[in-house]
């Protein structure tokens, strides 16, 4: 409750929440605003925004409605961001928790694995995964999740390392409780706040990664994602720059919204900061 109040008092958190809610409305209401297939031919290609009242944001080089793609793309971007983040956070917490709680050889093995992932630039790894497993929506989302977990694991491990020696954890050991209880009920709830905050960063990066893939035309071409739209505008960047710029601004606002929410969460969940506000 206290954290919720602190969150509601932070202006950045409120702005971020407003942006994200607007995006959610766009994504969820896309079929209602634009019931036709957003990838279907709608009119003459490359009409400037405002030139034709039917297309307030213009049309792309194939004659598809940019506004419709933007609305449907919000759904795709948020979905990819959310699912990929969930995958990354679940893998990261599982590996970090086990490594931090048990320490010793298990920790060493898991941390070397984590480092192996971290030493590869994650975009390159993502390209390899997509090249091998194909570029459907599902594989792209899972691949983004798979390359994003190492920082989550390191963060969780650091929290576990300091929490596992606390007296309340030792007290539970003496009470005869099993490791599963210690990890899930005692340590994890106390380790979560910084991980939740970091998840907002993972989500922003996941959305960017998908856009970057789409820009290289390596993402699923059969879905109306923002990245695809930017990719389509690449060839006409010097004359009809709005094709790339409009989805670019949408991505910018999304990342801004996610980051502001993350900052708000940080302020709300960090007891030292919450007290001074």
């Amino acid at each position, binding site marked *: 409750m206290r954290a919720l109040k602190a969150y509601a008092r932070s202006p950045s958190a409120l702005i971020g929440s407003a942006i994200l809610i607007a995006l959610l409305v766009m994504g969820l209401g896309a079929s209602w605003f634009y019931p036709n297939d957003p990838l279907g031919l709608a009119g003459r290609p490359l009409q400037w925004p405002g030139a034709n009242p039917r297309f307030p944001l213009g049309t792309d080089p194939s004659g598809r409605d940019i506004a419709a793609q933007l609305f449907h793309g919000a759904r795709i971007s948020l979905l990819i961001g959310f699912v990929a983040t969930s995958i990354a956070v679940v893998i990261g917490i599982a590996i970090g928790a086990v490594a931090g709680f048990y320490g010793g050889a298990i920790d060493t093995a898991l941390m070397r694995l984590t480092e192996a992932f971290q030493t590869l630039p994650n975009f390159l790894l993502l390209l390899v995964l997509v090249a091998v497993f194909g570029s459907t929506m599902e594989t792209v989302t899972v691949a983004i999740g798979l390359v994003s977990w190492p920082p989550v694991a390191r963060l969780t491990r650091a929290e576990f390392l300091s929490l596992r020696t*606390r*007296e*309340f954890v*030792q*007290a*539970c*050991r*003496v*009470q*005869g*409780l*099993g490791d599963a*209880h210690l990890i899930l*009920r*005692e340590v994890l*709830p*106390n380790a979560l706040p910084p991980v939740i905050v970091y998840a907002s960063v993972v989500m922003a990066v996941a959305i960017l990664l998908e856009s970057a893939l789409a820009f290289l035309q390596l993402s699923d071409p059969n879905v109306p994602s923002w990245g695809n739209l930017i990719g389509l505008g690449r060839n006409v960047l010097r004359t009809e720059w709005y094709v790339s710029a409009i989805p670019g601004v949408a991505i910018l606002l999304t990342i801004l919204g996610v980051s502001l929410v993350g900052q708000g969460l940080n302020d709300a969940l960090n007891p030292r900061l919450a007290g001074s506000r």
Partner: protein
Amino acid sequence: MSRLLVEGLTVRLPRGADRDNAIENVSFSLASGEILCVVGESGSGKSVTASAVMGLLAPGLSIAAGRMALSGEDLCALSPDAWRAVRGRRIAMVFQEPMTALNPLMSVGAQIGEMWRVHLGLDAAETQRRALAALREVNLPDPEGALRAFPHELSGGQRQRVMIAMALALEPEVLICDEPTTALDVTTQAQVLALIKDLQKRHGTAVLFITHDFGVVAEIADRVAVMRLGKVVEEGTARAVLTNPQHDYTRALLAAVPGLHAPEPRALSPETVLEVRGLTKTYASRGLFRRRKPVRALDGVSMALKRGSTLAVVGESGSGKSTLARCVVGLLGSDGGEVMIGGAPLPAKRREAARRVQMVFQDPYASLNPRRRVGAQVAQGPIAAGMAAAEARAEARRLFTLVGLEAEATDRFPHEFSGGQRQRIGIARALAMKPEVLVADEPVSALDVSVQAQVLALLRDLQDRLGLSILFITHDLRVAAQLSDEVAVMRNGVVEEAGPIRSVFAAPRSDYTRSLIEAIPGRALFGA
């Protein structure tokens, strides 16, 4: 004449705190060559008083009313720049925690030298010469070596001596000591107190000494001010306040000071419930490039606890007493020897071991999970052992009333309880497992003296009612004397002396035990 004069000082707390003012209408005067002890329990405002006089109030606190004067000069009117010239030079401070009060990256010599460099602008050779003299004056064993040493290379007592040398470097008019000996062992505490008193006499410094311990007051004070909830409730000469207290609160505090009176010996059961035989534990540091000398925390320790009695394990920091406690409950594995509980070694399986031995932890703030209801934390052990959840919860409520809390309190979170109440919850949690042996690791050392007495009384009462066998770990002989039947004095991982507590305290055989007893502050007043 009075060096430091404080009149009607009121410091306001930020809105939303538990009271309006941290301190209210506090007045005292401090003459040169005098030691004024400000005594109080946690939350009494004694530390706020000290930081107000230093001009170092925490953010959010502000002086609402009152006057402070140093040798007649008004301190409240000083600008931040003028304050900097006063602090260190005319008013100096020694802090509680010698581990964190020194900069870990600067050598001791450089830190002391900084005082003369910053305030007087002396050159390097002169500051080194003066630093060496200062370290000699505080009786450091190897002053030349200490000059080059870094803080982590010194012990806690040595660090506190360095702090005192730094504080006195510029011959300040007023020295403020904020619990300077609380973090130290009892023998070190006695040495540091003697040092402060000796230096204060020689330099004629006025000392404002903040403490919670009436034993320390009896050792060092000329005059005493007793604080409670931000107000001075009694002030007078040390003799008058200690022997003839006027205020009820002072009387209650003095009554709560444990004396070294062991209780009447009881008939002890012949049955041994816990036996430790030749227990050995070595801490080896496993580094790839550097191997430190392994530390023998326990070196062939043997002791026995009779059923239904209390065995106190007494020792200073580093004596191995906490390692012993952790080995007995199975949190640490030992390297040799054995722990027998009820005639059998401690089972390897955690769930079975929990029925045999339980532990009460030292820190009431760290030993409860802040995010779970306290009732659930008490009930979870029996539930894991196979008790039905509803039954375990009912048992938890019953245990809460047993330790003096309301049964409804099981639904609250730890932060809603005071330190003493949390320690009661810790005891209830341990009792929920119905253990044969209860290990209490410094259960009262983080509590105020009046709360300490209540928790000790509770343990004693529970022992009478439930026939508990308690292994009581403590650094404080006075606390040990309150409820123990037998005592084992540990030093450097070895049991120095063991026996019935009365005979050990009345006629200690080992020199070390004797030095521990002699170092108890206020022994002359509170009785040995």
